[in-house]
């Protein structure tokens, strides 16, 4: 195929026909090997021809996995995420694949020898750069098949990620956090059996008082109907810590995270404050079936938008965010794949690819991965594309998906999946929600023996829908 890597030089080169392709270093090789992304173009690091992209993949396939331990893409001294990745690497767990190249690792992932048990043992031995590298030489098919072998199970009041289950986040966002408006979207979703991963709201502002009122709203609803569920107000981690100190009924601490120290600083966080957030939630001991108390969101392009990418491609940076996530033992993590915008993922092809990459990389690293299957109105995508991605992710065994009423988020002005979509996937794949939540749905009469929903006009559904949140009772 060519002369492979030049001896004694840090660069990578290959001759394809008459064309010689040279890549300055490992991060340039990684960027060039990546499937086309508008964000890598914007950063000026993507392959400029199709041939060059494949040249990079030939070379990347021959890179030993060990190289990623020896040559950090972002210097150890410059970045606490790199330090976290290397300092927490489990050499014992890595040993079964330590001799492999990236290409051999890809073939092994797809082999009969690679089982769920093997992958679970391997996870602490893998670094984000290794899984990002192998994903770049894997087709969508490979990403789905390999991810479907993984199993990452977590718990709080429900158990999420069990084989044969599909969980969902109920997202009842409202432009002004009006309690009745939020209640309407929440109650609607519950009649669809949505919300077993979390009932999670993006508040309209970061105001502590308003966030605490939302926490109270969800907690009273939970107690009124004895729902095995957890709620989360997706405010900044420092606001959640204040809410815990003020005695709010907080289940999960949320934070957006990224794969570099500088990008995390752009979010106003570092590893220390994230650990403090986790400690705060743990101190409340509100979990019943597990103590995973964090909810984290990520997305390709977030580091570039903060100018904090160190010349590393957006998908590799995204995988590094999962090392941050893994450290915090979260209940759920999701990529907001199509939300960041077309300057990072231009169209449905790029969004679908990124969704499968993110899910695969997260799961391989042992992260309880879900996806917000979504797009904005300036991206070249529509609901048909989301149909495609949700079916692909269900095939890949995704832990949870996000749903909003009618797929339309009236607060963040973008489109995700609908409550209907979650029900449809459950039926199509025979994957009920988390066992504790499923039992509650049966208890309430919201599901029949065949897993079909009760009509919203039925008395069992009306029992829920007619619930009135007592706004005056809030703190």
């Amino acid at each position, binding site marked *: 195929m060519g002369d492979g890597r030049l001896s004694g030089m840090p660069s990578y080169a290959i001759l394809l026909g008459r064309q010689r392709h040279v890549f300055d270093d490992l991060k340039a090789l990684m960027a060039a090997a990546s499937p086309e992304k508008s964000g890598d173009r914007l950063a000026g690091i993507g392959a400029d021809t199709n041939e060059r992209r494949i040249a990079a993949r030939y070379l990347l396939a021959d890179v030993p996995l060990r190289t990623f331990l020896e040559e950090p893409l972002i210097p150890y001294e410059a970045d606490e995420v790199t330090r976290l990745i290397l300092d927490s690497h489990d050499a014992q767990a890595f040993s079964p694949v330590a001799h492999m190249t990236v290409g051999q690792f890809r073939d092994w992932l797809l082999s009969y020898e690679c089982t769920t048990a093997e992958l679970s043992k391997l996870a602490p031995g893998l670094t984000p750069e290794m899984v990002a590298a192998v994903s770049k030489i894997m087709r969508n098919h490979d990403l789905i098949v390999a991810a479907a072998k993984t199993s990452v199970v977590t718990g709080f009041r429900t158990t999420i990620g069990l084989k044969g289950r599909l969980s969902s986040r109920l997202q009842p966002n409202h432009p002004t956090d009006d309690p009745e408006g939020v209640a309407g979207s929440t109650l609607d979703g519950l009649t669809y059996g949505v919300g077993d991963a979390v009932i999670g709201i993006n508040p309209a502002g970061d105001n502590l008082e308003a966030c605490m009122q939302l926490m109270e709203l969800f907690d009273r609803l939970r107690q009124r109907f004895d729902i095995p569920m957890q709620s989360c107000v997706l405010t900044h981690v420092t606001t959640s810590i204040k809410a815990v100190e003020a005695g709010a009924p907080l289940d999960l601490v949320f934070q957006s995270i990224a794969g570099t120290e500088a990008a995390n600083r752009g979010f106003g966080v570092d590893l220390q404050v994230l650990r403090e957030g986790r400690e705060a939630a743990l101190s409340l001991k509100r979990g019943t079936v597990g103590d995973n108390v964090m909810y984290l969101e990520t997305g390709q392009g977030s580091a570039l938008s903060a100018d904090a990418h160190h010349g590393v491609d957006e998908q590799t940076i995204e995988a590094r965010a999962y090392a941050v996530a893994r450290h915090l033992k979260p209940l759920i993590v999701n990529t907001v794949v199509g939300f960041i915008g077309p300057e990072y993922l231009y169209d449905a092809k790029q969004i679908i690819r990124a969704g499968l990459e993110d899910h695969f990389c997260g799961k391989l690293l042992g992260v309880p991965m879900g996806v917000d299957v979504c797009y904005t109105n*300036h991206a070249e995508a529509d609901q048909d594309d989301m149909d495609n991605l949700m079916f692909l992710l269900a095939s890949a065994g995704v832990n949870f998906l996000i749903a909003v009423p009618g797929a339309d988020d009236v607060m963040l002005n973008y489109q995700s999946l609908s409550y209907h979509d979650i029900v449809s996937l459950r039926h199509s794949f025979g994957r009920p929600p988390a066992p504790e939540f499923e039992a509650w749905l049966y208890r309430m009469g919201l599901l029949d023996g065949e897993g079909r929903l009760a009509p919203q006009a039925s008395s069992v559904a009306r029992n829920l829908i007619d619930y009135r949140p007592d706004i005056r009772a809030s703190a």
Partner: protein
Amino acid sequence: MSNPIDLDPFARFRSVTRARIGLGRAGDSLPIRAVLDFQLAHARARDAVHGHVDFAAMAARLGETLPVTRLRSRAADRSIYLARPDLGRRVDPAGLATVQKGDWDVAFVIADGLSAAAVEAHAEIVLSACLRRLGDLKIAPVVLGEQARVAFGDEVGEALGARMVVVLIGERPGLSVPDSLGAYLTFGPKVGRRDSERNCISNIHADGLPHETAADKIAWLIREALRLGLTGVELKEDMSGAAALPLTP
């Protein structure tokens, strides 16, 4: 079989939320009416993003009473504009060279941004309402910016020598509102200003902030900015609605 909801159990929520709740089902799926309503809203949003502001006609209308300059960004077309926000933030050099420096308090820029529909529907009305409130200030010639983002105004304001710039721009359309206008105010405009150095009045549309109220807020912010010599996080205004738009157009 569909399960029509004959007595809407969600009636009590309809006045407090636009969320698509209580849609009913066809099996597990959305009923056809809900599918088509969604597709219509998305089609309008897409048309707003890809629509074309008739800047020639706008320049002719405004030119009857005001000096007007037309400029374009370095993004040659809409697809480049969407993929390369860096190019939409910079002014095409040939046009920029024609801009004369002056002694101006405020420069107004009308930029297409992400919604042509918003600019066509609201920009001229809001501009006129602002100008009526600022008769005592030195106002630079109005600039119309094609394929332009918010930071486009920084380079324009700098070239004009204006003390501050106000960019009226089409916001990223949502399904419920495809024609929302935003106003971004920046004191001391120059290339490289950060978003934290701006103030924003957003959600200017028929069901949102009315034109006259928006102009009140903008005029208030202009006078405060000129008095304090700054815009941004240190200049407080009730930015209700701004938090809902994490990405500036």
